[in-house]
């Protein structure tokens, strides 16, 4: 592989991810001057794209864990489109895109070929957006889980079909405005329903590893990728990646918004092995859901022309339920 490009300073401050002032064992993969740089700069994602951020961390961590021997398979979606406007490509690792709905099966095919060739050193990562994963690709993903194919599959959840212009997906939360769940009518935005909780669906397959993460916890994300890459079989990582364009948030707020999703309890961060939850990331400072909703234009209709306390209370109940279900409150706060 070609020499790694010069390191740029992405973050500053003593607690920031990637900090190079920390000891070697504590440093982020991104702080390593020899990091793989699997997704190079110069791609065409929107400014502040959570998906681009997540993909870079995840694939670099996967590359590091696998000694540089990773093949990536990508579903159709923003990540694919913004990274490969032919004849350019931002990928510095072998990368294959086939279709919107088949990334898990294509990745499993790559894994099968490697198995037949006895190449245990090369590892496979499949990736797609929430649409490609929870909707159109769910059949293929479930098949991949069921066979326990040796693939780490990553879902970049930006809670809608961003690539086609922000339409609703099965992962769009209730009341969110998208191009197909407009902020009009009696009950504006996406309807309340049972939802499609893919991490739980994945756990029901009892695969070796399921984890959720957000781009607010980048070190946690890296650590989970390393843990997943240390295992064989089907592994699933569901990452919340705010989308400034679709969510109507400021480009510089991506990480903050992701953190709010965690701290309100709307996006529980946990790990599960063989179908059982084994670890959760506790909420350090619990916040009401309103703080998460307010900065996002996709929820603007909950605040104007009038404050929809009834709807917000309903969303709060979802957050409360997550907190109770996964035991997300840090010990001190839970007992106070």
């Amino acid at each position, binding site marked *: *592989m070609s020499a790694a490009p010069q390191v740029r300073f992405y973050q500053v401050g003593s607690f920031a991810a990637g900090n190079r002032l920390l000891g070697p064992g504590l440093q982020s993969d991104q702080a390593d001057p020899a990091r793989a740089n699997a997704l190079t700069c110069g791609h065409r994602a929107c400014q502040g794209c959570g998906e681009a951020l997540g993909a870079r961390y995840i694939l670099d961590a996967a590359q590091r864990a696998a000694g*540089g*021997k*990773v*093949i990536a*398979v*990508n579903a159709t979606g923003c990540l*694919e*489109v913004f990274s*490969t*406007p*032919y*004849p350019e*490509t931002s*990928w*510095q*690792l*072998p*990368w*294959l*895109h*086939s*279709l919107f*709905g*088949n990334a898990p*099966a*294509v*990745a*499993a*095919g*790559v*894994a*099968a*070929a*490697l*198995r*037949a*060739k*006895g190449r245990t050193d*090369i590892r496979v990562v499949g990736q797609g957006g929430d649409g490609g994963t929870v909707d159109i690709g769910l*059949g*293929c993903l*479930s*098949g991949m889980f*069921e*066979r326990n194919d040796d693939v780490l599959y990553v879902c970049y959840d930006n809670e809608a079909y961003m690539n086609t212009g922000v339409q609703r997906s099965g992962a769009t939360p209730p009341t969110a405005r998208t191009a197909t769940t407009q902020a009009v009518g009696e009950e504006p935005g996406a309807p309340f329903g049972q939802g499609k909780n893919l991490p739980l669906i994945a756990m029901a397959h009892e695969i070796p590893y399921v984890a959720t993460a957000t781009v607010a916890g980048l070190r946690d994300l890296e650590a989970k990728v390393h843990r997943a890459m240390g295992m064989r079989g089907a592994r699933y990582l569901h990452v919340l990646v705010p989308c400034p364009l679709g969510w109507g948030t400021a480009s510089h707020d991506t990480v903050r918004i992701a953190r709010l999703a965690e701290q309100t309890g709307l996006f529980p961060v946990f790990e599960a092995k063989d179908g059982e939850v084994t670890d959760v990331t506790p909420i350090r400072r619990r916040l009401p859901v309103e703080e998460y909703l307010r900065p996002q234009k996709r929820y603007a209709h909950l605040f104007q022309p009038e404050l929809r306390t009834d709807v917000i209370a309903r969303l709060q109940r979802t957050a409360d339920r997550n907190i109770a279900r996964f035991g997300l409150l840090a010990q001190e706060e839970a007992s106070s």
Partner: protein
Amino acid sequence: MLKQTEGSRAVAETVAHCRPEVIAAYPISPQTHIVEELSRLVKSGALKPCEYVNVESEFAAMSMCIGASAAGARTYTATASQGLLYMVEALYNASGLGLPIVMTVANRAIGAPINIWNDHSDSMSQRDSGWIQLYARDNQEASDLHPQAFRLAEELSLPVMVCMDGFVLTHAWERIDVPEQAQLDAFLPPYEPRQVLDPDEPVSIGAMVGPEAFTEVRYLAHAKQMQALEAIPRVAAEFRRVFGRESGGLIHPYRCEDAETIVVALGSVFGTVCDVVDEMRERGVRIGALAITSFRPFPLQAVRAVLGGVRQVVVLERALAVGIGGIVSANVRTALSGIQLDGHTVIAGLGGRAITKVSLHRLFDDAIAGRLEQLTFLDLNTALVERELARMARTRRSGPSAENILRDAGSNR
């Protein structure tokens, strides 16, 4: 080795001797025996190294083949009918990416109404998918076409479909010479991919392509099929040298030299057509037959060379282009452009309807006597059709046609 065996089994054994490294398949009649036998061969260790993957759908099967092929493995699957249609998006993708996947299509009708019997509606629906399509006349050829398909696919970096008639061939027991491993190894070298996913030499495959390059990419897809026009007879000739048998190639003319009428057909019906030609020849009728083995690429020049001088051409089609008539006929007409001759499209054998010698005799006699329409449905039960048309005209809610016709057919008996 010459032995009495089932068509599907012969195909499975031959495919196994081609040493595929990944097989992903989903069952559908009449393809099932092929993939069942392959799964047995892999599980028993007779075929190794090979990964046999049981997938959850045909879409997944073809998708898995795409991944496996791109990762450098020789890859095989088989399907039919609804399964082929369930794959469509991935089929175009496989050819667009230039992946040399080989697939057997055990030809079967497409519903609704659901029908498991043979015709060519499935593979014909994929005529523009960029796959090479070869049609087998009998089980020996069905078996022999597979090593040739792997050769062609890998030489040209294009996927190849071997089409064999469902049940008529797949489930028929015959004496078939299944190639031995050593013979096959002499004919089919190991797979060397043109493009491969390799961490030591990373490439991006499947990029987003805009208008500045898309036409050129499609042109190349066409150019590769044109190269296949040269490669198909060459590979068939090589096959003949190694195995001493005539299989494959672009076309097969039968008693065409002095023929005034030539019947064009694909697949297993060709044998019956040749029998009828023989019998009519005994009566002094100057008739011949032409099998098209390579439907994609379509051998325009070879077809023109055989048909160009005749008085009359009858194309037997086992699929219907609804709203126009014949699929193969349209291609034959392109081959004969500028040539004046009497051309007929005959839709025959849909959904497993038997194509009998008696019907063919009547059909060809009609053609020669100038009584044949441009578009004919062989052995169409016009009484049933008229009753249903009348019913539809009479009542607003006439109900499902297929069920009505079945009921009428029952009461007719």
